[in-house]
Every structure is written in structure tokens, then in C-alpha cells.
């Protein structure tokens, strides 16, 4: 299925992240919060591949820029804003209508429970 309905004043950005460290905060995306960009974004398509042969992986997302403590954080790995379960040696694909339209204003951070995950996100972001 094709994503997406992009709302007024949004544009899309695709990104890829290979996450190998289990249980470690990992930055997937940084929101364009700094002036003059002054925007935020939401996930409109999420594809996660888990290359582990036997174990499923739980991937959690929350709103944080891990290297800037002066911008607000919403959520944590224990209280994520969004969570995806990926089967062993499998993939999970979610499109816009399956993803809560949660706005990430500082960035998208994640953790995985099994190593060797590939995260592909499509973000609809505004740039103020």
C-alpha cells in the first residue's frame, strides 16, 4: 500500500538506520527544531527488518534528541510513544493509517531488544 497523506505545510523525508546495539538508546532522526527551521515531524511509514534467526525484536520509539538536554523529552523506552514487534528473520511494515499521528518535536530515539535490526522510516515533517 502506498503511504501517505501529507498534510498542508509538510514534506516527506526517508531515512534508514541500522541498529546493532541491543538495549541502547539510538537516535534515528533529529527534528528540525532549531531556528529558523522550527518544525517537527510524524512517522507516516515504518519498515523494520529483524535479521536475528531465532528471536523476535521489540522496537520502541520516543521523542528525544539524545545529545541535547535542553530540548524536551517525551517518553522513554519503558514508556514509548510507539512500539513495533518484529518477528525473527522477518519484517513489519506499517503505513500511516496504522501509526498514531504522534508528533516528534525533538527527535526520534529508539531501542531494540535484539540486535541486527534495520529501521526504515518515512517522516512527514514541517519546517515552519
Amino acid at each position, binding site marked *: 500500500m502506498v503511504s501517505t497523506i501529507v498534510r*498542508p505545510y509538510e514534506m516527506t523525508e526517508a531515512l534508514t538506520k541500522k541498529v546493532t546495539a541491543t538495549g541502547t538508546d539510538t537516535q534515528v532522526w533529529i527534528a528540525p*527544531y532549531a531556528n529558523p527551521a522550527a518544525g517537527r515531524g510524524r512517522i507516516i511509514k515504518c519498515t523494520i527488518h529483524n535479521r536475528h534467526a531465532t528471536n523476535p525484536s521489540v522496537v520502541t520509539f520516543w521523542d528525544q534528541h539524545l545529545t541535547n538536554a535542553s530540548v524536551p523529552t517525551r517518553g522513554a523506552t519503558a514508556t514509548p510513544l510507539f512500539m513495533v514487534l518484529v518477528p525473527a528473520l522477518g519484517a513489519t511494515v506499517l503505513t500511516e493509517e496504522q501509526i498514531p499521528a504522534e508528533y516528534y*518535536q525533538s527527535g526520534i530515539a529508539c531501542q531494540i531488544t535484539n540486535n541486527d535490526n534495520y529501521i526504515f522510516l518515512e517522516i512527514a515533517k514541517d519546517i*515552519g
Partner: protein
Amino acid sequence: MPTLRNPLESGDLILIEPRNEYGYYFIDPRFAPRVLVDKTVNIATRFTTPIPALTSAGATSGNGIDHECTEVDVGDLELAFYKMIVIDPDIQVQVWQPAASMIFNDKAGGRRLAQNNTLYHAERGDWAAVPEIWVFQDDTPVKLTATSTNMNSDTYWARVRFLGYKFKLFQPRIAKNVDYAQTVQTINVGARQS
């Protein structure tokens, strides 16, 4: 497809009220009206001053965040015309010009601008239904008051988008107290504030 056009043409005679402060001006025919591309103003201050969440007591005039909107001022002998679009959900905006006088009011009080009565019309190209303001030089900035409609959390996102035209002016020798019949349009920008 409807479009947003400049409401004045070169050579038009306009009366800017209150006339005891401003008076008659011509749209300078030596300069074409210039489109002012979209500009976004955030009434909240990221990430220090959010718009507080709406409480169960409801919104009163005292619990909004005020912002003097000097971001859309123009230069000397310039007049700007803007359409205003609220682009974030969860907020309502009241507009004042000058600071103690609400623009979009009726007998029941001030009308609040939100996505549903601004962005909705703009997306459909129905520009006539989108609220408009005028700004003269840097003398008459509007004040915006944002109130949250979100009862769950504060928000740093209370953005209003301005787009329109600016016009160069020159002042003819017409007495301010004369009602001049050739006036094309009368524009009220409120008392001088700065």
C-alpha cells in the same frame, strides 16, 4: 481556481484610519505590489513558554499566551495586507489591533481563529473566507492571544501563517478631515502603537 490577489492597485487612493493619525495615501505607481511569501509565527516560545493545557474551568481571557506580532511589520511608507492561517491543531487565536481592541468580534465577544475556520478555507482556495489584517509600517502590530484546546498536555506549537502583499505609499496633499469621494478603500489599522 480561486486565488489570493492583491486588493489594491497602483495609483489607488486609500484612506487609512484613524485619519487623525494617518490620513490619505496613494499606492505608489512606481512600485508594483509585492507578494509577501508565507511567514510563520509561533505564539508559543519553544521550548521555554508553552501554551498551557486547557483546564476544566475552560478558557478565559486571562489564560492565553500573548504575542505582539512585530514579525510582519513593514518599512517606512509601506502598507501590508495579510491573510492569517492557523496551521497547528489544539489552539485558538484571538487577534487585537491595537493591543486592547479585538478585530474579529461580535456582540457576543471575540471570535477565535483556529484550523477549522482558516486553514480549511485556504485549502479549498476560498480566500475570501480567510481572515485578513492590515499593518501600516511598524506602527500598528497586531497582538495574538493563543489559547489551548488540548486538555491533556501543554504545547509548544501555536503557529500562525501570514501571506499577502505589501504596497509602497506616498502621501498626497489632501486634508485629513475631508471625505474625498475618489477614495478606493478605507483601511482601519487602529491607533499608533509605537
